[in-house]
């Protein structure tokens, strides 16, 4: 592991630990309002100031990071499992199944990702409780984000199906189901891992986009998307630079993931 990757790993561990320890590190809960100090600049009490409703920004950044960093991998896991099931099985079965799976994949891929997300999000009720909005947002990411991974897995499973060892196993009388679970799936693991890691930064950025557009996590629950929505009220960049902390944190985390992924992308392809 080179220095860049080690640094990226350390940054991710640090951010993740801080967000998990939000209950102890944050001066107050993410929804607690200090009505006497709304829109306050950074001080010894509020390290990153307060927002327009008087909520401590540092606490909201910590809790928001926890939500985004825990649920993005959960959504990535869901999408990778779906991709493995749909793409892997279709590729293994081949023929009409593979063609059908690829037609559905093409249909999803023909729409721009953000457009597909806002369309699907609009189909769900928008006036829901904050917790439900968190679940809906990340479930949606997981349920819609499987397509490109499925395409890769379908191709990989297809080439495995035609490989010598699978042919020999089939000739030896191994059943289709056993062949799939014992010989095909374990060989798809590197591609599955790569797809899982690639999906995480994509989902973090997608949640941020949805949040800024008002279609993500509902108030008062914080997430990187809802925290970045605050930038909308800025008049100039230099005016309140502390409001950029969530953005800087997001860029640092996504960059760290990109560093870690630099080797994985070749496997995924």
């Amino acid at each position: 592991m080179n220095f860049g990757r080690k640094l990226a790993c350390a940054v991710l561990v640090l951010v993740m630990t801080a967000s998990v320890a939000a209950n102890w590190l944050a001066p107050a809960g993410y929804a607690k309002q200090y009505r006497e100090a709304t829109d306050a600049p950074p001080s010894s009490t509020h390290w990153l100031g307060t927002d327009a409703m008087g909520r401590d920004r540092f606490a909201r950044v910590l809790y928001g990071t926890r939500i985004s960093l825990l649920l993005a991998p959960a959504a990535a896991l869901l999408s990778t499992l779906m991709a493995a099931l749909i793409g892997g099985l279709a590729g293994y079965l081949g023929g009409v199944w593979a063609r059908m799976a690829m037609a559905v994949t093409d249909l999803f891929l023909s729409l721009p990702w953000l457009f597909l997300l806002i369309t699907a999000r609009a189909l769900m009720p928008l006036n829901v409780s904050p917790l439900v909005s968190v679940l809906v947002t990340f479930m949606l990411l997981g349920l819609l984000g499987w397509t490109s991974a499925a395409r890769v897995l379908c191709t990989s499973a297809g080439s495995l199906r035609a490989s010598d060892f699978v042919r020999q196993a089939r000739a030896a009388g191994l059943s289709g189901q056993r062949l799939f679970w014992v010989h095909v799936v374990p060989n798809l693991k590197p591609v599955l891992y790569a797809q899982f890691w690639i999906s995480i930064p994509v989902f973090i950025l997608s949640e941020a986009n949805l949040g800024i557009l008002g279609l993500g996590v509902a108030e008062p629950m914080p997430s990187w998307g809802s925290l970045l929505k605050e930038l909308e009220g800025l008049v100039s960049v230099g005016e309140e630079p502390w409001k950029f902390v969530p953005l800087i944190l997001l860029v640092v985390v996504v960059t760290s993931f990109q560093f870690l992924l630099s080797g994985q992308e070749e496997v995924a392809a």
Partner: protein
Amino acid sequence: MRGLKWRIAGHTLALLATVLLGGLLSATLVRLAPGFDVDERELDPHLNPQSVQALRDARQQDHNIFRFYLSYMKRAARGELGTSLSLGQPVRTLLRDRAPLTLRLLSMGLGLAWLLTLTLALSAAWLRLSVYDALTTVLSGIFLCIPAAVLALLSVLWNVPGSLAIALIVFPRTYRYTRNLLMKAYSLPHIVTARAKGLGEARILFWHVVPVVTPQLLAVAGVSVSMAVGAAIPVEALCGLAGIGQLAWQAALARDLPLLVNITILVTLVTLLANSGADVIGYAVRRQEG
């Protein structure tokens, strides 16, 4: 020539099938979405029971998905795309009025993105300086890590045109592929030999590199249209530009499903046309080169 015709026919069929299937899928989702069969007008205390019943009867035909979809397609074939629930205007008028701005924004954004991509990628391939290559990669990497909506917000703060925001959203994605393609092409044995023999850079580029990379670059260009359409949503929504992207956002926020279905079909059509066009041109180029 015959192969090209078959390819065009194949793409047209695939386009038709995708639009029909996509439309059916959208109609099904609209039909199944929570709150589909609810009309707020029914809550109006001024309406008598007969009027409320009339409103319910009017929605009766929408209950069967296939009948709903068939009647929608019939009307769409006549150019009637229905009426927006949130804006109260015909969808056709809304799309017609907003399309020019989006088209202008997309064409300028894509033009700028490709200008930046080709300038940086070509200079990286020509110079072959590891420092310069690392700098351009870091630059594109930074833009790749910033959410598209934040770039749109920053463009408002810095008072720069929306097309530049679209360019900066698309550029890092196109740059990565283009740089890799050019680097690979410049390391091909015949191009290395041509360089070693002292052939001019312009001649190497136009005679040896361009023919090699054109088909793949065309494919990336096709995909970049889809990226730009996706980028138009946050840019138009947050920069206050009244285009189709902003319309899609407003429709999503208001859960204006009839409007959203029409925009979905339109966007599918545009992105598929761009990808099919790129594929057909790429095929024609490959054939011409033999």
